[in-house]
């Protein structure tokens, strides 16, 4: 983009969103995207530590993990997976709306993303409540009929709550970011020239979706064939 094209004054002969230390908006966009990916690579390791713990305990106690997993609600987990994938679609469409300077589209798709993210958290809340009712929350009130499996099943539920809890925390942060995007979009801040905030927030949102794509089979689905034999 030529710098004079959107200049508002002679002193600021470039887009108002372009910071002074960047040569162009393209370079600024490239830097934002790269920075977000560096952060996401860190996030991979953040979840990676917990997944490593999961891997070790599951190889040690495969039967206990299958038994514990069999008490998770597969339909609710599957619905939540679909809800999150749907929210990733609306997020991608919000980015597209920003790239094409379609303000109304930005607002509608960001609102849909918020609604779907909230739906996910509400369903997760019902699942957590069910675990409290059935004494499956690790701690002094944890109950498991088979004495031999109690400790490793409790470990499964510790990892379940740690992994899904950390994931839910990311969802809450993501919804916060979406509210900020919504406010900016309403003020008409995003256009084909400048949409980096929508793009990088989208990267974060999709990352959280990817984490769930792995958590769903690893937590919910390892006991399904055992339960129905």
């Amino acid at each position, binding site marked *: 983009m030529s710098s004079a094209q959107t200049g508002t004054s002679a002193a600021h002969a470039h887009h108002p969103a372009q910071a002074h230390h960047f040569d162009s908006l393209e370079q600024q966009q490239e830097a934002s995207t790269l920075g977000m990916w560096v952060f996401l*690579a*860190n996030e991979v390791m953040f979840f990676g530590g917990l997944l490593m713990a999961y891997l070790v305990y599951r190889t040690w106690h495969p039967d206990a993990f299958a038994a514990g997993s069999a008490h998770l609600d597969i339909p609710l987990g599957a619905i939540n997976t679909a809800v999150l994938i749907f929210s*990733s*679609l609306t997020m991608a469409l919000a980015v597209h709306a920003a*790239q094409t300077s379609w303000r109304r589209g930005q607002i509608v798709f960001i609102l849909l993303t918020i609604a779907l993210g909230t739906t996910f958290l509400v369903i997760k809340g019902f699942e957590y409540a069910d675990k409290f009712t059935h004494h499956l929350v690790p701690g002094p009130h944890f109950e498991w009929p088979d004495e031999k499996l109690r400790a490793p099943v409790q470990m499964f539920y510790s990892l379940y709550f740690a992994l899904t809890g950390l994931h839910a925390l990311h969802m809450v942060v993501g919804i916060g970011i979406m509210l900020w995007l919504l406010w900016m979009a309403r003020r008409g801040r995003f256009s084909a020239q400048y949409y980096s905030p929508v793009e990088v927030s989208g990267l974060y949102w*999709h*990352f959280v*979706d990817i984490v769930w794509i792995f958590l*769903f089979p690893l937590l919910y689905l390892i006991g399904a*064939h055992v339960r129905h034999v």
Partner: protein
Amino acid sequence: MSEHIVPTRVYYLVFLALMVGTAATVWVAYLDLGFANTAVAMGIAVTKATLVILYFMHVKYSSRLTWVVVASGFIWLGILFVLGLTDYLSRGWLPQPGVPRI
């Protein structure tokens, strides 16, 4: 800006593929395939994640530098898993006096 704009048709197709993948992973989970259950589930999950990364996250259209950073995240995860498991999985192989077998 000269950034590549992905046609919405591509997003809808990827969404469809992700939904099919989700249905497939649930269906396969009810079959008893032994060890293959986990392998199939992870295969589907990796495919779904790759679709999200390439299309929803635009990596297919991103710079080589972005590719390097994306790959580094997963390579480090691989190092964590492989080196971690070489320790934990091999602990029971050689009996050691005073150390309980796991």
